[in-house]
C-alpha cells in the first residue's frame, strides 16, 4: 500500500496494513513535524508532491527493498498539504519474518524516499520560510 494523503495519517491503520500472520517482525518509522528548527519555532510545513511520479518512485524503492530483504508486506503513506507541529508527515511500515530485516528494510525505504521521491517541504518558521534542501 502506497498512498499520498491530504488528510491526517492513521498510524494504526498503516501498521495494520503491513501486518501478516506469517511475519513475526514489524518495523515502523513515523516522521512527525517538530515544533522547532534551527532554534526557531516552526509554525507549519507545507508539503507538495508530484503525485503520480512520487507513487511510482516509492514503488521502485519498495521493489528494490523486496529484492534485498524478505518483505512480507509494506505500507507507506506520506502527507501532502499544510502540517502543524505534532502532525505525522510520513509512515513507513514493513513486516518480515525476523526482526533485523524489518529494521534494515524500513530504514532503507525511508532513507531512499528522502533522496529520490518528488516531494517537497516548505518550512515556515516564526521569522521566514524556506524550501528545504533547495540551495547548496
Amino acid at each position, binding site marked *: 500500500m502506497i498512498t499520498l494523503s491530504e488528510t491526517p495519517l492513521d498510524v494504526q491503520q498503516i501498521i495494520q496494513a503491513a501486518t501478516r500472520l506469517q511475519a513475526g517482525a514489524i518495523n515502523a518509522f513515523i516522521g512527525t513535524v517538530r515544533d522547532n528548527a534551527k532554534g526557531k519555532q516552526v509554525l507549519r510545513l507545507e508539503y507538495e508532491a508530484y503525485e503520480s511520479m512520487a507513487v511510482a518512485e516509492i514503488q521502485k524503492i519498495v521493489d528494490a527493498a523486496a529484492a534485498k530483504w524478505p518483505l512480507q508486506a509494506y505500507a507507506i503513506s506520506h502527507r501532502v498539504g499544510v502540517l502543524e507541529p505534532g502532525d505525522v508527515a510520513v509512515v513507513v511500515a514493513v513486516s518480515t519474518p525476523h526482526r533485523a530485516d524489518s529494521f534494515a528494510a524500513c530504514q532503507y525505504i*525511508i532513507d531512499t524516499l528522502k533522496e529520490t521521491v518528488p516531494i517537497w517541504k516548505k518550512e515556515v518558521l516564526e521569522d521566514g520560510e524556506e524550501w528545504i534542501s533547495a540551495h547548496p
Partner: protein
Amino acid sequence: MNTNMKKYTVLAFGIAKDILGGRQCEIELPGNTVSALRTALVGQYPALAGLRSLLIAVNSEYAEDGVLLEERDEIALIPPVSGG
C-alpha cells in the same frame, strides 16, 4: 519563427514553481533534448541555476540529459526533493 522550434509544457514543483511563477509553463526551444530544455529554462529563469540540483522528469521518470523530448510528453522540473 524558426521552423525547428518546438513547444513544450513543463510542470514545476516546490521552489521551481515559485521561480517559474506557476505550476506549469510553456517554453519553445530549438532542440529536443533534456539538456537543451534545461539550458533554455535556466536562461529564461536564472534563479534555477542557484539550486542544489535540477532534474527533469519525462513521463514520470527521471531523464538523463540525452533523452529526446516529444511535444506531448509530460515534462516536470524536479528541484531538490525534501520529503519525509
